[in-house]
């Protein structure tokens, strides 16, 4: 871990010396470190992180809840999914950035565009993984439900949801990554704070040391998010044991 980052710093420093670029255009590690320290000392970075997290989790959690509930329902209704599937498939590959004129029109500026863009980025992976998880629930479990004369609701919450859960958790993992990547894009639309705003603002001010510092912070926070959801997945794998659909 430390070796990795150490090596990276050395390569970076060497590159910045050898390339002969102006420091303003390609800030060396030291300059970026200073910028980082300055942001930490002034505490401004924590406000930005806090607001970014707030937006991120609002969008992510809303997407996750909606996508799981919807996915559990339509996953059991192939007829309805056949209608929705092509729509989802066409909407999914479109960059949330492309939607921004419409997002502003419908959701205004400030917090909402960021939340909506994160919502979009998280919604589709979770929906698709939930639907395919529900479809792949082992027929054996459905037979148990039938054998024990469960009602539809019992079947959904006692059998299908927990049986599909490991694969849904995998979808949550993928979604947290792709949603975090779109934080920057989301906070470009009229936000006055947050890490994405900070990057855009620093870019416009040509303070590339701050841009780089923000990249590092976003990277590290992304890593932490990933680790957190990995713990969660580990817990799922432990409980769900050998049954985990995808390891």
């Amino acid at each position, binding site marked *: 871990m430390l070796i990795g980052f150490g090596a990276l710093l050395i390569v970076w420093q060497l590159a910045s010396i050898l390339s002969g*670029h*102006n420091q*303003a*255009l390609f800030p060396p590690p030291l300059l970026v470190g200073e910028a980082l320290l300055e942001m930490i000392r002034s505490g401004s970075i924590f406000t930005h992180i806090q607001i970014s997290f707030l937006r991120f989790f609002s969008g992510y959690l809303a997407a996750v809840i909606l996508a799981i509930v919807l996915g559990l329902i339509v996953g059991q209704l192939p007829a309805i999914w056949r209608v929705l599937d092509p729509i989802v498939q066409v909407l999914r590959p479109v960059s949330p950035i492309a939607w*921004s*004129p419409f997002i*502003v*029109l419908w959701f*205004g*500026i400030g917090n909402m565009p960021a939340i909506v863009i994160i919502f979009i980025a998280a919604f589709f992976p979770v929906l698709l993984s939930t639907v395919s998880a529900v479809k792949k629930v082992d027929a054996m479990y459905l037979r148990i439900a039938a054998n024990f004369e469960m009602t539809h609701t019992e079947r959904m919450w006692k059998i299908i949801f927990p049986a599909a859960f490991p694969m849904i958790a995998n979808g949550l993992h993928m979604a947290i990554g792709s949603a975090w990547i779109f934080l920057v894009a989301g906070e*470009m*639309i*009229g936000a*006055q704070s947050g890490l994405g*705003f900070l990057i*855009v*603002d*620093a*870019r*416009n*001010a*040509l*303070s590339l040391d701050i841009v780089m510092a923000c990249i590092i912070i976003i990277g590290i926070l992304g890593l932490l998010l990933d680790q957190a959801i990995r713990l969660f997945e580990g817990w799922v794998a432990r409980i769900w044991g050998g049954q985990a659909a995808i390891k």
Partner: protein
Amino acid sequence: SGEGEISEGKQTIKIGYLPITHAVPLYMQQDAEYEDYELQLVKFGSWPELMDALNTGKIDGASVLIQLAMNAKEKGVDLKAVALGHRDGNVLVVAPSIANAQALKGQTFAIPNRFSTHHILLYEMLKKEGLAYEDINVVELPPAEMPAALAQGQIAGYVVAEPFGAISVALKKGKVLYQSEDIWPNSIDCGLVLRNQFIQSHGEVAKSFVRDYVAAGELAEHKDAHMQEVVGEFMNVEQNVLDLSLQWISYDDLAIEEEAYAILRNALIEMKLSEDPPAYEDFVDTSLWQ
């Protein structure tokens, strides 16, 4: 939600801007307190995002490339230009190796946006130098990437809002080929644009707002220590870059002249950027000056 919301009895006016020297009067205006309204400046990262917000009424007005507003007006969004953002102050920056305009032949040249004064400035400059538009390769590039692209030799020059021109000059990666007034005196560039709906429903407030804006411009023109300090709050740039930018620009007399507007309108038509740009009387609201 824009549309002049009321808070604590005071009207709040939301105005969008980009952190460039062309919006300096707004910074100066924000610096003071006003009796009948509260000015709230909303920073954007790029013109498209700002225009999205303006067009959909999420902000009441903006300091924006006036051509973008004209285009929106042509598309049916009811906007009014009420004042200029600045006078002159745009520069054509080229790589130090480019001796004169003729040397640009066959080179790549960057502009921020097809619908911008900078594009027209380039167009007029080429005309003046006897070059054809096709002689150079024009690309659109986000302003923030221009200095890097120039330093890397990706482009031979660019023309854009300040302080991005000054940055290259300060870094010694570029030099000024032309000042805008040498190509097109009294050029119209960024302007203060308001939604007509806002003007209609809050006429008096709009009037005092524009009056204060113009006054703030006069104040900015002093370019004194106080002004520099205020600008520094809104734009995070090196002092030498800022000094350079401010040298080139002026903020007095921000009225939109009919004559200058006509040149702009013709240029847009000639360059096929627009078929029917709004007429002066439809688009420019001079009533607020009284």
